[in-house]
């Protein structure tokens, strides 16, 4: 009896270890507490949903995909601790998006780790950190970015602003770190080039994810006489900024990167600015292809939030494609497949993962938020308002040159 039990225990242990080898683990490192938590949680739900879909379809090469969440508190040091923890648990693929300061640290960490541990490489999939430097001067073979970088977004936004003659005085407000600074510099440069008559009446940098009351900032915007605000704010920094604007009755047009994140739509509804808040996105759910709309309907039913990250869908599907084509989940083989991969994008059109810098290019959309048109399917956060396509930039027109000279493994 005792021997049988022991044998059973050993058998279970063996089964456990084979089950272990049959999952592909993806470490999701993003804020799950603090000011970035609301968007971080939403991202985690999105990736988990995508992994479930892959598993329901039979997994990848017979293996299940598992998403493990790690809380980095939007802090670069904490990110490295969590990344090491993830790797120690057998994770070979990391994904992260919130905060370019975090992304820069993680990219650097992954490169060094891979240099020191040949044969045990780790890949870093970036779904939202958009500081251009990550695919330019600080580019890295092991880093892949699915979100259009900040310069691409600003270029599309300013092209869209160019013919709008009611824009005369622009106020810039951004988070005080690498990404926010790159937004303000690019906005200044591109507006000057495309609309030299526009006056920049304010250029604000505020601490990242620490402000709980934007009323003083809104008073300042108001006093500047601006008719338009341009901001790259994300997480609670955009939701609370819009909330404070609603309280003060600030009537301006908003050109944003992330007004669609958690809390943003609710705050826009409060401002009453009907189709005067614009966001640059990689898709617009209300005019997306039928397949994407079905995906979003199912996703909303399951998770209770809108699909903020269509790029996460592209990321996971391209990852699945790369693993299946390579017939391997070895990061090195996956990276070789991902480079230069062409892919039918979730929101329509063809995208490509540029080989030179691992930046993904796809059609970009500018959407406005307001009352739904007849037949539009999706409102946001129960406001009754939703996104509507206001402009589109073809993938080919979003391509910007890169300074990246990456070292490839032999």
């Amino acid at each position, binding site marked *: 009896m005792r021997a049988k039990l022991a044998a059973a225990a050993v058998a279970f242990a063996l089964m456990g270890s084979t089950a272990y080898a049959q999952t592909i683990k993806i470490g999701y490192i993003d804020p799950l507490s603090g000011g970035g938590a609301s968007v971080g949680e939403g991202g985690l739900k999105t990736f988990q949903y995508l992994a479930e879909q892959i598993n329901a379809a039979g997994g990848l090469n017979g293996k299940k995909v598992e998403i493990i969440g790690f809380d980095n508190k939007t802090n670069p040091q904490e990110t490295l601790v969590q990344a090491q923890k993830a790797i120690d648990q057998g994770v070979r693929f990391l994904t992260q998006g919130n905060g370019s300061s975090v992304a820069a640290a993680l990219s650097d960490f992954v490169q060094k780790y891979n240099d020191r541990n040949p044969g045990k490489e780790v890949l870093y999939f970036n779904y939202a950190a958009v500081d251009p430097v990550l695919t330019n001067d600080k580019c890295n073979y092991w880093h892949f970015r699915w979100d259009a970088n900040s310069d691409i977004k600003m270029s599309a936004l300013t092209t869209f602003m160019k013919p709008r003659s009611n824009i005369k005085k622009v106020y810039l407000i951004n988070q005080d770190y690498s990404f926010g600074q790159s937004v303000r510099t690019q906005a200044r440069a591109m507006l000057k080039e495309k609309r030299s008559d526009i006056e920049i009446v304010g250029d604000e940098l505020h601490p990242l994810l620490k402000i709980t009351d934007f009323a003083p900032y809104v008073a300042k915007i108001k006093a500047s006489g601006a008719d338009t605000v341009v901001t790259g704010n994300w997480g609670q920094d955009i939701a609370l900024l819009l909330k404070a604007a609603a309280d003060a009755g*600030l009537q301006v047009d908003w050109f944003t990167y992330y007004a669609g994140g958690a809390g943003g739509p609710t705050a826009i509804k409060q401002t009453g600015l009907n189709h005067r808040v614009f966001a640059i996105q990689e898709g617009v759910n209300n005019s997306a292809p039928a397949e994407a709309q079905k995906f979003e309907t199912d996703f909303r039913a399951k998770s209770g939030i809108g699909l903020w990250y269509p790029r996460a869908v592209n990321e996971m599907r391209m990852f699945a494609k790369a693993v299946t084509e390579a017939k391997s989940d070895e990061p090195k083989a996956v990276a070789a497949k991902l480079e230069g991969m062409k892919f039918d994008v979730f929101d329509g059109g063809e995208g490509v993962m540029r080989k030179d810098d691992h930046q993904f290019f796809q059609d970009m959309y500018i959407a406005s938020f307001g009352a739904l048109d007849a037949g539009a399917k999706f409102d946001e956060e129960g406001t009754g308002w939703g996104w509507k396509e206001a402009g589109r930039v073809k993938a080919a027109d979003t391509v910007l040159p890169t300074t990246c000279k990456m070292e490839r493994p032999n």
Partner: protein
Amino acid sequence: MLELITFSTLNGVLYGMLLFMMASGLTLIFSMMGVLNFAHASFYMLGAYFGFEISRRIGFWPGFFIAPLVVGAIGAVVERYGLRQVHRFGHVPELLFTFGLAFVIEELVQMFWGKLPADYRVPPSLDFIAFRLFDTTYPAYRMFMFLTAVAMFVFLLAILTRTRVGLIIQASLTHPNMVAMLGHDVPKIFMLVFGVGAALAGLAGVIAGPALVTQPSMAALLGPILFVVIVVGGLGSLSGAFVASILIGLVQTFAVAINASLTDVFGPSVGAALGDLGTVTVAQIAPIIPYVLLVLILIFRPTGLFGTRES
């Protein structure tokens, strides 16, 4: 310009009043018991979460009255069964006790309500525009916050200066042994003061929750600034805490509005020599100004603006 000054003043005074609601309790506890209560901002957070929980079950107004009482009761229990036990080992264990308590409360809040911000809304009865000035609207809820803070201030002042209890509290601030000799139950007064201090912080949390953000990091965001307030105001001085609260509120709000940098003040030649430091605007460093003030006060006037003793 006038518009900016007006609204910055309004916002600054409001923020200052909110700070004072917490600083008053903190400074009373400190001056009476010698305990620098690191968990004070946690009571503020508890107030916000209790207010949120009650408001989504039975409404905002019951929460407005019940939540501070519950927080006060918790404060009293913490004093009676926690601090009083630790008290006999001296001040450092007390300090460590409150320090640990702050973390415990934060973890508990995360366990019960999660790490995401709670959806604590302004009640519909207060969700309208109070007035319109220079084409800017001012929400009624902010007026309500302001009036609550003023009412609390008047109430506290009346108790301390006009009632017997207030007299005893004032006496035990400076001469606790003498008060005990006269037959008053000093430990009970301590418990009362700690409870009331916690309740005031709780009240601040209830009214600030919907206007700011109710989230587990709210205590950690506000905690450090409270210490600035009581140091600048002078340890143990209620009027000092009041003046310092308003001062810090105004300084922070107005700093945001000022775009000047060292280059603007001293000219481009000096600015170039300073490098990055020369181009940083006052608005950008607004969050650290209170701490600069803290350091300067400790160097040049350790007693604070209104304080009478050094520690």
